[in-house]
C-alpha cells in the first residue's frame, strides 16, 4: 500500500513541475514541447485516470499544438530558404551561416 501511494505522488509532482514551465514560460521552445509530449504521453493518455490527469492532458495537448505550429513554421521557412537562397543574392548571403561551396 505504502509503496504504491508514494509512486503515484512522485509521478504527479514531477509531471506538474515539468509541464508548468512549458506553454506559458519561454517562447520559441518547440524542443521542450516535444520532450513534454513524448515524455508525458503515456502518463496522460495511457494510464488509468486519476484526478490530476485532466490537467496533465490539457498541458500535453497544448504542448502538442505548439509543437505542430512550430514544425509547420520551421518547415516552411527552411524549404523557402534552401530553395531560394542562391537567387536572393546579397540577402541570401547575409542570412547564411554557412555557405556551401560549389555551384548550387
Amino acid at each position, binding site marked *: 500500500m505504502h509503496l504504491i501511494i508514494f509512486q503515484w505522488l*512522485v509521478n504527479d*509532482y514531477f509531471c506538474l*513541475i*515539468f509541464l508548468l*514551465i512549458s506553454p506559458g514560460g519561454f517562447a520559441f*521552445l518547440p524542443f521542450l514541447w516535444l*520532450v513534454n509530449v513524448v515524455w508525458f504521453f503515456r502518463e496522460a493518455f495511457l494510464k488509468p485516470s486519476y*484526478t490530476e490527469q485532466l490537467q496533465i492532458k490539457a498541458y500535453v495537448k497544448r504542448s502538442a499544438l505548439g509543437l505542430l505550429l512550430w514544425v509547420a513554421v520551421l518547415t516552411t*521557412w527552411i524549404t523557402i530558404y534552401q530553395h531560394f537562397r542562391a537567387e536572393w543574392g546579397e540577402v541570401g548571403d547575409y542570412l547564411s551561416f554557412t555557405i556551401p561551396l*560549389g555551384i548550387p
Partner: protein
Amino acid sequence: CLRALNGQPPAAPTPRVVEREEEEEDEELTLKYGAKHVIMLFVPVTLCMVVVVATIKSVSFYTQNDGQRLIYTPFPEDTDTVGQRALNSILNATIMITVIIVMTLVLVMLYKYRCYKVIQGWLFLSSLLLLFFFSYIYLKEVFKTYNLAMDYITLAIIIWNFGVVGMMCIHWKGPLRLQQAYLIMISALMALVFIKYLPEWTAWLILAVISVYDLLAVLCPKGPLRILVETAQERNEPIFPALIYSSTMVWLVNMADTDRPNRNSTEAASPQQEPQEVASPVPSSPSQDDGGFTQSWVSQQEHRLGPLQSTEETRREIQQMPSARPPVEEDDEERGVKLGLGDFIFYSMLVGKASATASGDWNTTLACFVAILIGLCLTLLLLAIFKKALPALPISIFFGLVFYFATDNLVRPFMDKLALHQFYI
C-alpha cells in the same frame, strides 16, 4: 531487497545470526548488482566514445592544427629537436596539472565552507559555455563538412532550444534519459575541445599524470576529492548533478527536513523508480507535524480510500515495526552507479586522440576502446568489493595508454608484415 510489508513481523532471531545471514545475502547481492551496474555504465561510455570518434573521423576541423593553443599549454610542440619537444610537453603538462589541482582545491574549499552559490554559479556558467558556444562551433563545423547551407534564424532556434532544454535537464529536473544524453553530449564536446587544442605529447602526458593525480586525490586521506565525497556524505547531500552522470536517479522522500524551508516537498524523479526507504521523520513541533503528507495529498487519499486516520499514535506504531526494508545505503539495486563527467571526458579524449593520430587507425582505436572498458569493469568490481568512492581514471587510462602504444608500435607493424606476406593467423 524489498521484502513484503505484510502481516506480522518475523520472530526476531538472535542478532548475530541475523548479521551473518545479512552479510551473505549482501555479498551475493553486491556481485549480482555489480554486474548490472557495469552494463549500465558501458552504454554511456561507449556512446560518448562513438560520438567523439565519429566526429574526429568525419569533421576535419578537430584534427587540424591551426596553430592555436589553449592558454594552459603555452609551449608549442613543433620544435626543431626531439629534446625540446619533450621538454615543452612536460612543461605544458605541468602547467595543466597545476591548474587542475588548484581548481579542485578551490572547489573543495568552496564546498567545505558552504559557498554553494559560488559553485553553482560557476557550474552554471561553464555548462552555459559548453551548451551554447561549443555546440555552435560544433554545428558550424559539421555543416561545413557536409557542405550544407544554414541560415542564422534556424541556427539560432536550434541552439536556443538545445541550450535551454539542456540547462534545464542538467541543473534542474528532466527526464532521466534526456539528462543522460545531455551529459554525454557535453562530455563529448569537451573531449573534442581537448583533442583539438592539446598537442600530441602533451595530451598523452596529461592523461598519464591526471590518472596518477586522480588516484592520489581520491584515495589519500587528505586528498581533495575524498574530502569532497566525505563531506557530501556527512551532510547527506548529493554532489552537484552537473558534474556527475548517474545511471538512475536517487531520490529521497523528505518527511521533515530541518534544513530546507519547504518541509513537505518531495524531490521526485523518473516515474519508473521505486521509492526507497522513507527517511525517519523528525517532527519539529506537535502542531506542525502532519507527518509530511501535504494537504492535497491527504485529501486525494481520503477521496480514494476513505477517511484516513493518521495520527501521532498510528505513525509511531508503524515506525516502531521492525523495518522490513533495508536502509538506504545498502539498497543498491535501485541506486545505480555514478561516474564523474571528467572520467567520460578523459576516456573519450584517449580514444579520440588514438583515432586521430594513430598510424594503426581502427586497430588502435578499437584496442583503446576495449582497454578502457576492461579498466572500467575492473574499477566497478573493486567498487563492489570496497564500497566506497574509487577513482575511475587510473586503471582504464593505464590500460588505454599501454594498449595504444603497444598496438601502434608493435601490433600494427606485425599485422602489416603478415598482410604483406599473405600469412593468415
